[in-house]
């Protein structure tokens, strides 16, 4: 076996890496140096050393954006995983209309953010939207308050909408994982007299390892760099209250602080890296146990 290992297949990662190197890594390396400059997108850039990074920690708006982003992630990443897993367990059995039901759950994730933005506008507008009229029809218009006008409730709505929209994506990965688990294992567990809970804990969960890892990591990354959903629901408002770090980076990039925006992007990268590395390490440790 060992002697055969030298072969073309060792280099099968090369094409993917080559494509990536040209269209991502090369521009990245070219662009990243801007973090040490005061480039405003218009005039020639000047080297400013670490000033952008130092400025960041005195930037009240950026710090409050970090808080929003982290709070959002704390709500969204675990919920997405739990809801996605529940969906996948529900959908991973034979029943009539299975493909239609999967379709329904995945539907929200396939609509472009542009259209979603308009849908939310018609649904959630206080005093005007569908939900208001729905509650009005029930005789309780006051149940539908101005949810988007207040920081806490706006953030909650954003988290819930995000889960609603993207739980289908998490479900797809869990489904792919569940498909890989042989039915025989359950049979064996059943013959041994295991209850469903035991089967889930001792057969399903451990074998879902790869799916869990993929989902946890992609959800952490996705939630910490959330952009579209906040833009279409609140635009980061009122004021800058629900602005996330990605939106801030975009606004700085085009708002004459391009060099600074690159520095903030690197800080965001580090913010993402920490939980991803930690959870990756934890999960591998768990798998080895």
């Amino acid at each position: 076996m060992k002697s055969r290992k030298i072969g073309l297949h060792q280099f099968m990662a090369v094409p993917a890496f080559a494509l990536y190197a040209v269209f991502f890594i090369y521009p990245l390396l070219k662009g990243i140096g801007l973090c040490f400059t005061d480039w405003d997108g218009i005039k020639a850039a000047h080297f400013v050393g670490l000033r952008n990074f130092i400025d960041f920690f005195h930037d009240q708006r950026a710090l409050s954006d970090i808080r929003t982003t982290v709070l959002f992630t704390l709500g969204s990443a675990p919920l997405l995983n739990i809801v996605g897993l529940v969906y996948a367990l529900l959908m991973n059995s034979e029943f009539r209309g299975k493909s239609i039901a999967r379709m329904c759950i995945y539907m929200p994730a396939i609509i472009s953010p542009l259209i979603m933005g308009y849908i939310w506008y018609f649904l959630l507008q206080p005093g005007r939207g569908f939900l208001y009229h729905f509650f009005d029809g029930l005789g309780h218009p006051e149940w539908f308050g101005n949810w988007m006008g207040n920081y806490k409730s706006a953030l909650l709505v954003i988290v819930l909408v995000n889960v609603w929209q993207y739980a289908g994506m998490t479900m797809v990965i869990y489904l792919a994982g569940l498909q890989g688990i042989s039915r025989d294992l359950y049979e064996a567990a059943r013959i041994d007299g295991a209850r469903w809970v035991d089967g889930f804990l001792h057969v399903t969960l451990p074998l879902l390892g790869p799916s869990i890892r993929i989902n946890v990591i992609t959800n952490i990354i996705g939630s910490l760099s959330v952009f579209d959903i906040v833009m279409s629901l609140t635009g980061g408002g009122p004021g800058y209250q629900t602005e996330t770090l990605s939106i801030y980076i975009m606004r700085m990039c085009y708002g004459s602080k391009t060099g600074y925006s690159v520095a903030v992007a690197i800080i965001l990268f580090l913010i993402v890296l920490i939980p991803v590395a930690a959870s990756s390490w934890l999960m591998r440790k768990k798998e080895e146990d």
Partner: protein
Amino acid sequence: MKRRKAAALFMALAMATGTLAGCGGAGNQPAAESKVSEPVEETAGAEETDDTQKESETGQADSGEKVNIKLFTGKIETIDVMNEIIESFNKSQDRITVEQEYQKDASNIIKIKFASDEVPDIMTTYEQGFVDEGKYMDISDQNEWWDRMSPDMKAACTDVKTGKTYRVCTNMTMAGFFYNKEIFNELGIEEFPGEWNEFVAMLEKIRTEKPDVVPWFIFGSEAWHLGHLIEFIPHGYVKSNLGTIEAKKAMLENDQEALKFADSDGPMAVFAGNMKELQDKGLINEDILTATNDNCVQDFVSGRTAMFSNGMWAISSVLEASPEMEDKIGFAPYPAYMQGSSPVVLSAEDSGYSISATTEHKEACIEFMNFLFLPENQQKYCEVAKAPSAFKDVTAKWAPEAVVSEVSAALDGAVNIGFTNEKPAGFSGDDAGRMLQGLFAGQYTPEQFAEAYTDAWNDGMGSAGDEEQ
């Protein structure tokens, strides 16, 4: 096994720091790099295709070979009429082909284009920063255009710093309050008040006598609208008080002695206090933070709101929603709200075109613009854009008769202010609008708002100021 995991984690971190360290070296000369990259890209551009080489030759030699010019626009409302004009231009001769590119975030995208040296030949975006960098062609001596305009109009197009002209504006636009004349007549309001206290009293009258009608509708979910309120009311005061040119200079030099943004009795704090008062008294719509332009138009045409602030471009959506509004639209200046000031109305240049300083097809651009500026084409354009022409020889029916007379009455009765292009590059109108959102959401007191506004203004100036040294 454990060691492998630790190594992996370490590598991930090393990767991150590695890239940082890696660019530390490169970062020493980013300015140089960007300068170096220019000629590199130019050579790349020269090698580009045979087409471009031919084009550049024809640009100078006028040898009758094909030329392609790109027109970059962010004006959605005129896409179709421009395409029509471009098509007839392309058919009228067989040497020059014009292509229009529309972008939603035109002012953002143009920055990337400038940074990549892929600049469109003609563009409708215009920014002080690019003027300072010499990115636009000087068209001060295009007298066949300027002779057809009033001297004021040319002055409005001219850069205050250099005294040269880098863009030509074909239209005017106005902004003020649009109000429902029917509601005003019913309540017996004869004249639109010119003073803030009377204005508030009028809003209160509407509120008490017509409880179902929102006196003043502000669609604050759209930051640009709130930004415009700041631009028209407090900035409007500064401009009317100091005079257009002096105000432009004070803003360019960030002369806070003259601007007085941070003062607790300055234009910003008083304006913020006034807006807070209207909100507390319920004289503006409750859903100010979530309302949209569309809501505003719907409520206006259905008589649920008495007035709103906007520019002339609002007319087309109002009339589209309800053609019967034609005779009911009133137009009025912003009332004076500071001691000893006068009512103001925006009367500014609109639909500007600039030519890239680096274009290889200068004559072709001018030839196209000559065609675009022909009276019959401008007439078509004005009617679509709902804006009167800046050319003296163009008469266009840009709005219904009744509206036109309302507007000219308003212009005669108030100080006409222009649009400020001299704002700090790092503090856009949308940024200002989002701060006003914060005020309505209860984040600031009026004094805090004035301070925060001044800080953001200085900060936006500051970054640009540092670079000039």
